[in-house]
């Protein structure tokens, strides 16, 4: 791999071959996304914190002080907001850039031409979205501890909580891939209004799923929202005194959501990427 004297620089083509090269290409594409996030870190952070912070503040603090919610409510709310952020930040991180990339800027083309299978580029999108989602969820922990008065977690549940957050973020990234590849840019606003808002309020974020017995139809709808299983699973792990779904149900449901969204999303991605 000698330095080129003139003309086209040699980059050591003989050292490259398809097998191990794909791993490097994958890391390269992921590295690019992470580097861009790093450059816009302040924007990213405010974007991630704003909505959950206000939810936390109004539901956890304001309504509590006014006496409209019982003191234990914050204990129930924080795991829900961690779940919400894990899924939502991941959805947004994956879906929005893809809609723009595929329809207008074509900026993703250079990555589609990397020596990496198109499916792996799609997987990278999921992993990147999930990493943003995971981060967005973790930064809510200190925020929650600062804003809310009474939060006590069962720390022995942390490992399972971590697994749930990773799965929830991955499901969010995969769902974002579905939206990003199936929705045209003209409809993205409508989709966000019709899909995102209901997801926001049916994820058992602000209430425990099992206590919805009197609102059976709503409970059924909540059961279809993957966020429900992150919220409930986290409650089971961190605040077991709040009524919650069994952990294995949550894990199973999330693995299924990852698989379902993953398959649809990757197929959609390959279809958009290749003519």
């Amino acid at each position, binding site marked *: *791999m000698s330095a*080129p004297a*003139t*003309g*086209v*620089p*040699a*980059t*050591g*083509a*003989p050292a*490259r*071959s*398809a097998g191990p*090269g*794909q791993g*490097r*290409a994958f*890391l*390269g*594409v992921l*590295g*690019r996304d992470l*580097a*861009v996030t790093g*450059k816009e870190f302040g924007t990213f952070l405010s974007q991630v914190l704003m909505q959950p912070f206000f939810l936390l503040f109004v539901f956890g603090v304001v309504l509590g002080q006014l006496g409209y919610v019982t003191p234990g409510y914050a204990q129930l709310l924080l795991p829900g907001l961690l779940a919400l952020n894990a899924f939502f930040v991941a959805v947004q991180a994956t879906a929005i850039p893809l809609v723009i990339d595929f329809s207008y*800027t*074509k*900026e993703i*083309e*250079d*990555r*589609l*031409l*990397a*020596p*990496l*299978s*198109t499916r792996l580029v799609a997987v990278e999108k999921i992993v990147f979205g999930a990493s943003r989602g995971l981060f967005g969820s973790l930064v809510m922990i200190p925020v929650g501890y600062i804003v809310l008065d009474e939060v006590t977690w069962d720390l022995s549940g942390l490992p399972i909580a971590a697994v749930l957050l990773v799965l929830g973020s991955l499901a969010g990234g995969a769902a974002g891939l579905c939206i990003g590849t199936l929705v045209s840019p003209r409809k993205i606003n409508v989709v966000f209004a019709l899909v995102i808002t209901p997801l926001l309020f049916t994820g058992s974020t602000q209430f425990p799923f099992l206590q919805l017995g009197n609102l059976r139809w709503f409970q059924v709808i909540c059961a279809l929202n993957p966020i429900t299983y992150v919220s409930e699973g986290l409650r089971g792990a961190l605040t077991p005194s709040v009524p919650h779904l069994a952990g294995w149900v949550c894990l199973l449901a999330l693995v299924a959501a990852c698989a379902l969204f993953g398959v649809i999303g990757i197929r959609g991605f390959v279809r958009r*990427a*290749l*003519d």
Partner: protein
Amino acid sequence: MSTDTAARPASERTDGTAPAVEVRDLVKRYGRSRTAAVDGLSFAVRRGEVFGLLGPNGAGKTTTVGVLTTRVTKTSGLATVAGIDVAADPVGARAVLGVVPQRPNLDRSLDARGNLVWHAAYHGVPRARRRALADELLDRMGLAEKASTNPDELSGGQAQRLIIARGLMHDPQVLFLDEPSTGLDPQARLFVHDRVTELAASGVTVVLTTHDMDEAAKLADRVGIVDHGRLLALDTPSELVAALPGEATIDLTLTGADVGALRGRLTEVRGVAGVEEIAGEAGLDGGATHLRVSVDGEAGAALPPVLGTVADAGATVSQVELGEPTLEDVFIDLTGRGLR
């Protein structure tokens, strides 16, 4: 043109003896469309060659390049780059080809240098080499001062040069340029042309699509003319022009000849396709005759026998004008005048 194999580090996985690009009976039909965008196209590009794909809009050029660059899936046929079947091993093919697309697609989240450095990262160029390589290419493309500029702030010509630099970052064996100078000003076009010539000299095979005749004639060693997804002609620009029947002209202004007899004798000269008298401006040239002799191939080649015949007929030539056909005449002859 160098037929490199030793000059450049060919990837171990590629077949050094295979053509740089080969397309055989390639067919691409989009979706439910009944007509094929590419309809049984076959051609091969030699290593180190600059190959031009020429055709009207919608002829199938971009689709063909799309298949070769793994972005379009073929319907049937074979397409290889550096001996790698692009459909069977798209990942391997992407490692040995570079693409300069028709539409700028620079990454606007990164600056100019970032576009190059990350491209190198995708292609597994060692970290230690990326930045030096990027700076070297920025310099070569006249963009050294734009290294930290966002692509949004580059002019069309600068963006195009940056895209070419990006395509070269991973040292491809074959570079595809899809309409490389569309929308560029003459200076930028010339710069791009010079870089293409330079690349070819250094052993990179270049496949370019264009509908700019001058560009094709100037840059390409060989040109394939495509229309309706089919190959109509394939040869060097000069051979294509030479093969054109009766498109070159010799305009003669002469005096002292029996025009009727001379026309008859000229028609018998080898290579002459026709002779017609064209009206001169009466009074200005005092009874001179104007003849337009249409010849096959190049006008210059037919000139001596034509002049000889005129002299034999006892006429005096006062003016000769040669009209050489261009690649454009070949193109129009093959693809017609109809608008697309």
